[in-house]
């Protein structure tokens, strides 16, 4: 299976958790320790299991997520 890498543009994130809810590999989680400039707990990457499926990024209303495939 493809390996991927997601990058979250934290200051666009509103901590809505839609990305977290659709990730099949439980790669994402809202930060419990950090808040962004708008006061939200941003989503962050918690493991290396990303398969570059793009589900999280397609659900993100704020277009905060970029997905790369590791060739």
């Amino acid at each position, binding site marked *: 299976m493809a390996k*991927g890498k997601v990058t979250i543009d934290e200051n666009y994130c*509103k901590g809505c*958790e*839609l990305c977290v809810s659709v990730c099949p590999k439980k790669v994402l989680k809202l930060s419990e320790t950090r808040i962004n400039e708008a006061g939200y707990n941003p989503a962050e990457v918690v493991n290396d299991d990303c398969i*570059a499926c793009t589900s999280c990024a397609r659900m993100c*209303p704020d*277009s905060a997520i970029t997905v*790369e495939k590791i*060739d």
Partner: protein
Amino acid sequence: MSVVYEKSKGLTDVKLHYCPGCAHGIVHKLLAECLEEMSETENAIACVPVGCAVMANKYFNFDAIQCAHGRAPATATGIKRVDPSKIVITYQGDGDLASIGTCEIVHAAARGEKITTIFINNGIYGMTGGQMAPTTLPGMKATTAKHGRDVKVQGNPIRVSEMLATLDGPVYIERVSVTTPGQVAQAKKAIMKALKVQKEGLGFGFVEVVSSCPTNWGLTAVKAMEYVKEKMIPYYPLGVFKDLTGEGK
């Protein structure tokens, strides 16, 4: 490494003012992605509503005009008839389209205007704080239906896609939703098809998106998507209601 998904160039860098997890943002992206993929961002004009999406013109990286409440289809009609080479889109909420603007959408559809309408059905007046909309479900609470909509008092919801599909004017009508990545992909296909119907000069295209309003529904964004799946979609079934393109589904 290769980028497989990034923010559409059809959107500006302005941060959306929408509440966390509001589906308006998802649909904005889909419209922007479709126009980008069709190479039409330079040629598109969006007619944006009164409602939470009133400032969509700041987010769309293409031309846009803010319309009087509910009148986007009339504005779009004027623009398209003056310059048929433009891709003209109306983006409207359910208060905007199905309440104050019912006249405009019905007649634009009946006339078969060569425009594309994206209709955001979140069952409520979002911007003004959660009043009942024509699309509010029976039993669903709103600030103006404190104990839930009672159809004997407040009347029945309107299924706009089905209603417009009875008219001879429209060429393409589909209802979609955005509660899962699969549904988001289907919604994008529908918007793309409605835009192509316009580009090819075939006529009026209409995409209803069964959407969410986490704030006024009093739910988290994730729970609001579940509400759409469990309550809204059974009342507003997804699918194609009219397709005169001859392409089938």
